[in-house]
């Protein structure tokens, strides 16, 4: 997909480059790297990606609270055009930060292609709004409380032991953030939904350092 990126017009580096740099610096910490590898090994071994909604499938309709405290229905968003629906790990995740920044930067081009963006996070307690404000995001940030929509899409996994231990040791209380003690997270997943709710395009990866490149999203939207 790399050759779809408009090289001449990109004055800033791609999201992928930024994520790779961040990953490389994180992996210098052996403990972090082992926890990271454990997630990849576990999810690759069991064929996790096969359980995620694929192109052509209908994305199930849902209603979720927005960061501002409104109820947002997927059907209402789709009535206005295609939807880019993206799952995030949360406000604490540096890889999500880079991705949200890139998404916010590219929002005008996405909207110019007629689409709307919904960003889902499993976080509660005002964190979805904090995430939205931090990135000055002009798109809807929705609280996927208790992973309901993530589970329907097949993107939720139980965090393996090493990674969970690192989160706990760093004082990052996911039970507090999520309002449940399930210790789950979504894998990176971005779906482009046609107005009839079918999935036209998707990006999924078990590796949380891999995210949908905005240029690829825009190219997919233009080819709808």
């Amino acid at each position: 997909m790399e050759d779809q990126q408009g090289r001449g017009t990109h004055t800033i580096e791609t999201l992928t480059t930024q994520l790779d740099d961040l990953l490389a610096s994180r992996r210098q910490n052996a403990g972090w790297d082992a926890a990271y590898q454990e997630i990849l090994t576990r999810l690759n071994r069991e064929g996790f990606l096969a359980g995620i909604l694929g192109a052509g499938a209908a994305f199930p309709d849902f209603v979720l609270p927005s960061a501002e405290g409104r109820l947002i229905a997927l059907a209402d968003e789709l009535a206005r055009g295609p939807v880019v629906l993206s799952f995030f790990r949360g406000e604490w995740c540096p890889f999500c930060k880079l991705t949200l920044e890139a998404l916010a930067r590219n929002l005008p081009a996405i909207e110019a292609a007629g689409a709307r963006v919904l960003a889902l996070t499993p976080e509660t307690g005002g964190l979805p709004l904090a995430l939205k404000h931090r990135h000055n995001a002009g798109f809807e940030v929705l609280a996927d409380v208790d992973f309901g929509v993530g589970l329907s899409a097949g993107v939720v996994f139980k965090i393996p032991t090493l990674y969970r231990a690192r989160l706990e040791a760093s004082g990052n209380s996911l039970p507090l953030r999520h309002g449940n003690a399930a210790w789950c997270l979504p894998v990176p997943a971005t779906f482009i939904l046609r107005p009839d709710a079918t999935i036209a395009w998707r990006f999924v990866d078990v590796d949380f350092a891999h995210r949908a490149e905005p240029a690829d999203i825009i190219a997919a939207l233009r080819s709808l």
Partner: protein
Amino acid sequence: MELSQVRYFITLCKTLNFTRAAEQCNVTQPALTRAIQRLEDELGGALLFRERNLTQLTELGRAMRPHLETMLEAADAAAGLARARRKHVAGSLKIGLGPGIGAAAVAPAVREVAKMLPDVAIHFDESGPAALIDSMLTDMLDCALLPDDCDLPERLNRWPLYRESAVIVLPTEHRLCVLNAVTARDLLDETILTGERCGGFANALVQITGFSLRLQRCNGAAAQMLDLIGAGLGIALLSERLPVSGPLATRKFIDPDLSRGILLTAVAGRPLNPAAASFIKLCRARAFQ
């Protein structure tokens, strides 16, 4: 993990029988068994063990069940509200309010639910914690806002919503109105109205300070208490969130600190109607100032 895997597992938890679970889920038994095995692979261990005809949950299975049940309910609720809206289902939203807890903080969430489901009947019940807990357990209430100092049974899920401080409510011509903030010592010559719906601030004050304060027992709704304050019977320590107007004023109460946390509670593992499920999600998603 996949929605169907989780659904099969929760059905198995309830039936403890692969044949019956497969029937209830409308799949063949081998398909159900395979799905459970894949879920076990992801979760890193066996969820169930079979001894002769007996199926039992393992320790991991027992530990995971409430979490997976919650996630399955969330998935069903997110889809359920979308469906209820398309079909114009008339539902109800029954919210309990603990003593002295106003509805103002959660009113925007109720408004959102009613916008999605215009036919929903909204019902508030203000009562003591024990009565509200009983109503939730017997399915008369969907959820309740309760103070964090009451005893909650294990079966109740709880999420902290906000903290609230006590204010002094008094007539505008009262001598204490000249103060910006009031302390316990300022109340030594006052009559303090206190009742079941006052939030227990006056009793807490007596306990903390050991002062012998003049307490006037007064049970009834907040509006009636405010009427008595207006008539000059006494003053009251009430939640800062209670709207007070007219001939009454409020002053901050600063010494000692009288505040309490307010929790949103609901019975764990019980499927809620779409209106109630959405209300709870809305309350949990946001921060309360």
